[in-house]
C-alpha cells in the first residue's frame, strides 16, 4: 500500500490533541514514513487555498480536533469532509463539544459581555465588541462569525469515526493510525475507536464497596482523600462510572484525581449528566426533601460537573434566550 494522504485540523480547541499526536514519540517517524501531510496547522505551513485546490476525496484520513464554534470552523469542517475519505472526530471537542461547549450554558451575548466588557481585566472604554463585518476607510473587514452555540463535529458534517479524549491517549492514537496505515478491516461507520466499550471503573483499581451512601458532596479543593479508595465511596464526584474507558486512567490512578468524563459516555446510555444524577441521587442518604436539596446544592454547578466534556451532546440543549 502506498503512502496515506493525511490532514490534521484544529477548530475550537486548545492544541492539546495535536500535541498528543506528537506524544507518540519515536513512532512519529513511522508516521512520517507512512503519511504525506496536506494540512496540519500546528506543525506545518499550508494554506486553506492549497486544500481547496485538492481534488475531492484526495485525503485518505482527516483527524479533526476541536469543536465548531464559528463559521471558519464550520467552513473547514465542510471542506475537509469534501476532500476526505475518512473524517475522524478527534478528541473530546470534536466528539462531544468538550470544554468549549460549556459555553452552551450561556449565550453568545453573555459571553461577549463578559469577555469584552465586564471582566476585571477588561479595559475597553469604547465598548468595542467584535463584529463579523466592519467598515474601515480601506474597505470592509470580515472575521469569522461567532455562533450562538458550540457544536460537536457530527452536528455540522457527517463523521466516520470518533476518537474520544481530552486529549486522546497517545497509545490509542498510534493504534488508530496503525490500523488505517496497515489497511486492517475497519469497524462500522460511526464507531467510537481508540477507546474501551465499558465504563472507566472496569479498569480502575481503586478499592470500592457495594455500600455507597452519599451524605454530602465534597469538593476536591477542600478535601483530603485516600488514594487507594474509590472516590464515590469517599463522597467525591467521579464521572468514572458513566465515562468510557480507554484513557489509561491518567487522572484516577496516575494523578489521584476523580474522572471528569473526557472520554464521553459509554455505549449504551444517552446522556452523561442524566445518568450521573440517576446514580448519585440513588445513593444520597436522606429522605427529607429539604435535606436532599441541601445535599444536592453542595454541587453548585451540576451541569458543569456532569457535562464538562459533553455539553454539546446531551439530550437537551440550553433553551434559546
Amino acid at each position, binding site marked *: 500500500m502506498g503512502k496515506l494522504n493525511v490532514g490534521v485540523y484544529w477548530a475550537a480547541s486548545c492544541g492539546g490533541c495535536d500535541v498528543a499526536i506528537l506524544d507518540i514519540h519515536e513512532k512519529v517517524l513511522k508516521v512520517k514514513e507512512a503519511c504525506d501531510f496536506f494540512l496540519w496547522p500546528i506543525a506545518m505551513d499550508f494554506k486553506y487555498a492549497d486544500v481547496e485546490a485538492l481534488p475531492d476525496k484526495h485525503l485518505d484520513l482527516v483527524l479533526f480536533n476541536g469543536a465548531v464554534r464559528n463559521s471558519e470552523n464550520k467552513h473547514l469542517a465542510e471542506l475537509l469532509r469534501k476532500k476526505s475519505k475518512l473524517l475522524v472526530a478527534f478528541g473530546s471537542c470534536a466528539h462531544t463539544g468538550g470544554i468549549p461547549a460549556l459555553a452552551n450554558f450561556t449565550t453568545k451575548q453573555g459571553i461577549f459581555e463578559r469577555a469584552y466588557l465586564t471582566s476585571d481585566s477588561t479595559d475597553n472604554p469604547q465598548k468595542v465588541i467584535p463584529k463579523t463585518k466592519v467598515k474601515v476607510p480601506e474597505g470592509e473587514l470580515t472575521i469569522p462569525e461567532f455562533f450562538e452555540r458550540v457544536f460537536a463535529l457530527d452536528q455540522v458534517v457527517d463523521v466516520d469515526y470518533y476518537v474520544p479524549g481530552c486529549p486522546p491517549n497517545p497509545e490509542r492514537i498510534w493504534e488508530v493510525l496503525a490500523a488505517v496505515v496497515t489497511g486492517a478491516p475497519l469497524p462500522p461507520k460511526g464507531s467510537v475507536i481508540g477507546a474501551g466499550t*465499558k*465504563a472507566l471503573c472496569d479498569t480502575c483499581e481503586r478499592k470500592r*464497596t*457495594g455500600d455507597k451512601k452519599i451524605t454530602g458532596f465534597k469538593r476536591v479543593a477542600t478535601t483530603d482523600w485516600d488514594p487507594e479508595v*474509590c472516590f*464515590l465511596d469517599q463522597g467525591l464526584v467521579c464521572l468514572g462510572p458513566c465515562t468510557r474507558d480507554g484513557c489509561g486512567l491518567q487522572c484516577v490512578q496516575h494523578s489521584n484525581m476523580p474522572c471528569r468524563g473526557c472520554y464521553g459516555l*459509554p*455505549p*449504551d446510555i444517552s446522556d452523561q449528566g442524566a445518568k450521573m444524577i440517576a446514580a448519585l441521587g440513588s445513593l444520597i442518604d436522606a429522605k427529607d426533601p429539604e435535606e436532599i436539596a441541601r445535599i444536592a446544592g453542595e454541587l453548585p454547578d451540576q451541569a458543569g460537573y456532569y457535562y464538562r466534556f459533553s455539553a454539546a451532546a446531551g439530550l437537551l440543549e440550553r433553551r434559546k434566550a
Partner: protein
Amino acid sequence: MTKPSGHRIGVYVCHCGVNISSVVDVTEVAAQAAKEGDVVLAKDYKFMCSAPGQDLIRADIAEHKLDRVVVAACSPRMHDDTFRGACAKAGLNPYFSHMVNIREQDSWVTKDKALATQKAVALVRAAVRRVRRHEPLYSKEVDVQPGVLVIGGGIAGIQAALTIADGGQHVWLVEKEPTIGGHMARFDKTFPTLDCSACILTPKMNAVGSHPNITLLTSSEVKDVSGYVGNFRAVIETRARYVDHDVCNGCGLCMEKCPKKVPSEFDEGLIPRKAIYVPFPQAVPNKPVIDRDACIYFQNGKCKACEKICGPQAIRWDDQPKTTEIQVGSVVVATGFEMYRGPALAELGYGKYPEVYHALEFERLNNASGPTEGKIAMRDGRTPQSVAIVHCVGSRDKKYKPYCSRVCCMYSLKFAHLIQEKTGAEVWEFYIDVRSPGKAYEEFYDRIREEGAHLIRGKVGQVTDQALTDDERGKLIVVAEDTLAQQRLRVPVDMVILSPGLASAPKSLAVAQLLKCSTDKDGFLIEKHPKLAPIETATDGVFLAGCCQGPKDIPDTVAQAQGAASLALQFVGKGKVLIEGRTAWADDQLCSGCRICNSLCPYGAITFDEAKKISVVNEVLCKGCGTCAAACPSGAAQARHFKDDQIFTEIEGVLAP
C-alpha cells in the same frame, strides 16, 4: 410515522360496549393506527376481552403472521394477562403484546370527544412504537425446599407450627425465651368469654413440645437468612443453657436449692425467680436454664448448689452457644409485640406511686399462678376499695403511638369485671372512645356497664397524691374531665391500672431486615396488600402471623396464624414456584463493576462477582422494580420490559405530532 422495521403489528381497538366508543371514535383510532409503520392490520371490535375478541387475535396471528399485538381497551391492570394469554395460545411470546388504556385513562375521564380520540391515537401510536422493541420474556420455574421456619413461639407461632406440622411439613419453631407461650401464657382470663388462658393454651404448648414434625428451638434466635424464594437457608443460634435438656428430668430440685434470687421477667418483677429457673410452671420445655448474669458461680466461681443436688448430673458449666443451619422453603414470622413502656406511663405516675400498675403487672397480679395467687391486693396486702383503669396510655397519641391498639379497651373492660368480681371495689374506667368491634365484644361492654363499673369518657391527665380534701388523703387522685358531663373530676382511688397499647417488638425489625420485609413507621411488618394479601409479604414465601403485623386480639391472631400456615403449606407443597420473566439483568459486556447498584436493590438480588469484578442480578430474587436500571450509570443494568429504548419510543410516540 416511523421507519418500518420489518415487524408485523396488529392493532385492536375495543369499544367496550359503549364505554369507550361513546366517547372515543374507535374507527378513527384504528384508521390512524393503520398509518403507522409495520402495522399490517388495525381493527375495532365490540368486546376485545370476550372469547370471540381473543379468538380474533389468535386467528390474525395465524393468518397474518403477526409478531406484535397492540390492544387498546381498558387498563392493563385488568386485562394484560388476558391478551398475553391470547398471544401465548397462538404461539407468540406473551410479552409481544401491549395494552393501551383508553377506558380508565381516556374515555371515562375526558369530556371532549375529539380530544379523547386524539389522546387515544397518541397512546396507540406510542404502543405501536414500543411494542416493536419488545423482547421475548420467559417465566422460570424454581424448586421449593420442604420445611417451614416459624419465628416466634407465642400463640401465633404455636398455632402456625401446629397447623403446618399437622399438614405434614416439618417445622422449625424458634423462640428467643426459654419457653414458648408468649404473652398469652401470662394472662389469666381472656376477653370476652373469660375462659382461662392457661386451660386453652397449655394443651397447644404441650402438643408443640411432643409433635414429631416440630423441632423446637427455645433460647434461640435467627441470626441470618440467605437464599431466595423457596430456598431459604437460616442460621439459628441457641444460647448456652448450662443444663443438658437431654439428661435433665425436670424434677426442679435445683431451683429449690439455688440461693440466688432475681426479679422474675415473667411476673414483671413482682416476685423473684432463681438464677436457675423455668419461667413458669407450665413452661415448654419444662426444664430449667441458668441465667449466667445472675448465677453466683459465674460471678465468683463458688456455689454450684444446683450441680450438687442434680441427680441425673445435667448441669454443664462449659455449655456453649450452638448454631443450627437449616434449609426451608417458607418462613412464617410470628414475632409478636411488646407492651408500650414509654414515657406516657411516667406521666401518669407509674414508677412514682407504687399503687400505679400497668396492664401486664395486673395480669400477673390477677393470675392464679402469679405472685398473689390471683388475689387482687395492694402492695401492703390490703384489698383495694376503688380502682381506676386508664385507657389509651401511649396509644392514639401522636407523641407516642398514634394508632389504636385494638385490644386495650377490651382487656380494660375485662379488668373491670375481674376486679368487681374478686374484690367488689368501685371501678372507674377512663376512656376516649370504647372500641369493641369483635364477635360478642359489644355485648361484653354492655355487661360491664350493667355490672356497675363507672365508665367515664375522658382521658386521664394526672395521677397525683396531692390531696385537696380529707376524702383524698392517703389515696391516689385521678384527674380527668368527664367530657359528657362537662365536669372536671378528681377521683380518689386505692389503685390505678394503666392500659398501654401494643408496640412492635424490637426483634421484629431485625427479623424483617433478615427477610427483606419492610416495616411501617411504627415498626410493624408490612403485608403485601392491606386488603387482599394481609398475610403475605413482598418477599415471596414469607408470611405473617399475629401482632408482628399490627395489634390484634387472640382470635384474629389465631386465624391469621392458620392462614399463614396454609399459605406456607400450599407454597411448600407445590414443590415448584414460577418466577416472572420481567426482571432486571446486568449486561456483563457493559458492567464496569462500579457497584453503585449493589446497595440499591430492596431484595438483595444484586451481588458482586469478585472474580469477574462485575455486578450480577439474581433473577430469582428480583421483582422487577427497575431501580437498578435507573441508577446504572453505564447502562449495564436493564429492566426487562421497561428498557430505556422501550420507554424512549413510548415517549416519542405520545409526543409525536
